[in-house]
């Protein structure tokens, strides 16, 4: 039993995370407070939602770098439509953002599945096309807080559950946990209990074998890239509500750190292997690192350096372990 637990990548990640948290807490006890945790959850909710999409793409053996452009497109279009029409409704914002996300995802899927283009190159291209088209046809003007419809501000401000600080002011758990948990459960359910999820793993493991086994590869790829677009749409609305400011230049450029979180969580870049738990731990790791270096007294100049270091340390241990295991098994076979 114990041996089985230690075989998992997640176990190592979890221990590193615990050690890391203990170190931060010793240096600065304000790390281990509800307030800090609520804050971490709220600020990382959008990124976590994106990682669920990236995880599914990686599982299928592909890679998607265009989701940031899809997210900003969804955000900017929905906010602009709401301002122009005067309708102050959050559900409409989500509807517009998610459907434009799905539409853009479908373009990716079309190029990847019908024309069989490599996923990295396709999405690199569409990243620039989507973002360029957004800037050229929709606009480049930033949306400031005064223009922003109230529904966004309320959504970003709303707490599900409030606690009181010692001085009598309130803080709380943001309503952001609802879409967050919803997306995690939905993704988990798809991967765990549906034929679709099995198909995603199968394509990532061996595309040819999956095809022979009668799996509808084109259909599944359409689902995958549309799902990424859908999640990016959700994230876009959450992002603008959080910072109460919309700029079409935001989000784009963060795609590699989102992918980094997923691969840190143990997802294989070659497909077929990875888990939701690992991904969540990877996100937790990067978020805690990003937000709490300041708590231990390091200036923000060190962020980039430490994130790079953690990624290298994380992937090195995983892959070095694999290398040793495969060496050992070769030695066993050749006797």
């Amino acid at each position: 039993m114990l041996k089985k637990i230690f075989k998992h990548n997640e176990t190592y990640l979890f221990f590193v995370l615990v050690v890391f948290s203990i170190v931060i807490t010793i240096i600065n006890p304000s790390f281990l407070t509800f307030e800090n945790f609520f804050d971490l959850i709220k600020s990382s909710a959008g990124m976590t939602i994106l990682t669920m999409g990236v995880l599914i793409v990686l599982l299928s053996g592909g890679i998607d770098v265009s989701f940031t452009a899809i997210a900003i497109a969804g955000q900017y279009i929905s906010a602009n439509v709401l301002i122009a029409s005067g309708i102050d409704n959050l559900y409409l914002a989500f509807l517009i953002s998610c459907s434009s996300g799905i539409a853009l995802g479908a373009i990716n899927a079309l190029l990847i599945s019908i024309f069989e283009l490599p996923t990295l190159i396709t999405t690199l291209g569409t990243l620039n096309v989507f973002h360029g088209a957004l800037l050229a046809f929709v606009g480049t003007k930033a949306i400031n807080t005064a223009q922003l419809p109230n529904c966004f501000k309320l959504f970003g401000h709303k707490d599900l559950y409030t606690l009181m600080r010692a001085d009598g002011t309130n803080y709380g758990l943001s309503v952001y946990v609802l879409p967050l948990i919803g997306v995690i459960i939905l993704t988990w359910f798809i991967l765990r209990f549906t034929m679709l999820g099995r198909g995603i793993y199968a394509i990532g493991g061996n595309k040819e074998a999956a095809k022979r086994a009668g799996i509808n590869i084109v259909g599944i790829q359409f689902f995958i890239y549309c799902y990424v677009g859908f999640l990016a749409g959700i994230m876009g609305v959450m992002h603008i509500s959080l910072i109460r400011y919309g700029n079409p230049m935001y989000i784009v450029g963060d795609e590699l750190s989102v992918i980094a979180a997923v691969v840190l969580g143990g997802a294989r870049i070659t497909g077929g292997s990875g888990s939701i738990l690992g991904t969540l731990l990877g996100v937790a790791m990067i978020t805690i690192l990003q937000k709490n270096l300041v708590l231990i007294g390091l200036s923000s100049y060190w962020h980039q350096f430490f994130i790079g270091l953690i990624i290298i340390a994380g992937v090195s241990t995983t892959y070095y372990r694999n290398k040793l295991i495969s060496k050992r098994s070769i030695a066993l076979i050749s006797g």
Partner: protein
Amino acid sequence: MFGKHSKNIALFLIMAFIIALMSFFLPDKFLTVVNFQSMASQIPEFGLLAIAMMIALITGGIDLSVVSITSLTGVVSALILKQFTNTQIGGASIFFTITMAILAAIVLSMFCGFINGFLIANVGVPPILATLGTQGLFLGIAIIITHGHGISTFPEKFLFIGSGKISIIPMPLIIFIVCTLLVALILKKTSLGISMYMVGSNPIAARFSGINNDGILIRTYIITGLLAGVSSIIMISRVNSIRPGYGYAYLLQAILVGSIF
């Protein structure tokens, strides 16, 4: 239709089409010596990064850290240039400073490449992940050194590399052509180059035919780093300043260009 060169011919036709289009619509602006000179001094820094990326792609890898290597080496050689010109003496010492700065950039960029190669070949990390990590690492070191600020105004003579001309040909273009020819020579005429193609197309077959895969990969990433370092020298000399994160937009374009070939 044209055998193995069909891809190159297609690309050439597309380029000819774009040039024709440009000259047709903007004849008095596009077809001028000044415009071609300005393009020729901008292409090299990006072109070197794309070639660096191509080398990594040939071995079946990728190098996401090239732009971060440019930032780090650019910052270090900028500091050397600043340090020595502040205690101004003149004459021979300027050339000494410039040589030092260029040497530092070259050695450092090769060392950065070695770290990438070590992680990929000896630790066994997939290239995309190893260089994703070192991308943050190298850029992070550059940010720590300068606290995110820029460094600018270098000695007059150093600027010749980025904005000087020999008759009408801009200096960056000459450096670019020399580097491209050297890379072509390595790829086509040396055993290193041929081994790189073999490792890229089938690593297991390469190993069984007696190629030292690890050594080839390490050398590949050292060359990649070196090209990024050369690109950084041209870049800081052309714009006469450096800030960590300069040229980040080149990264994805370099992958795109590198993978078209």
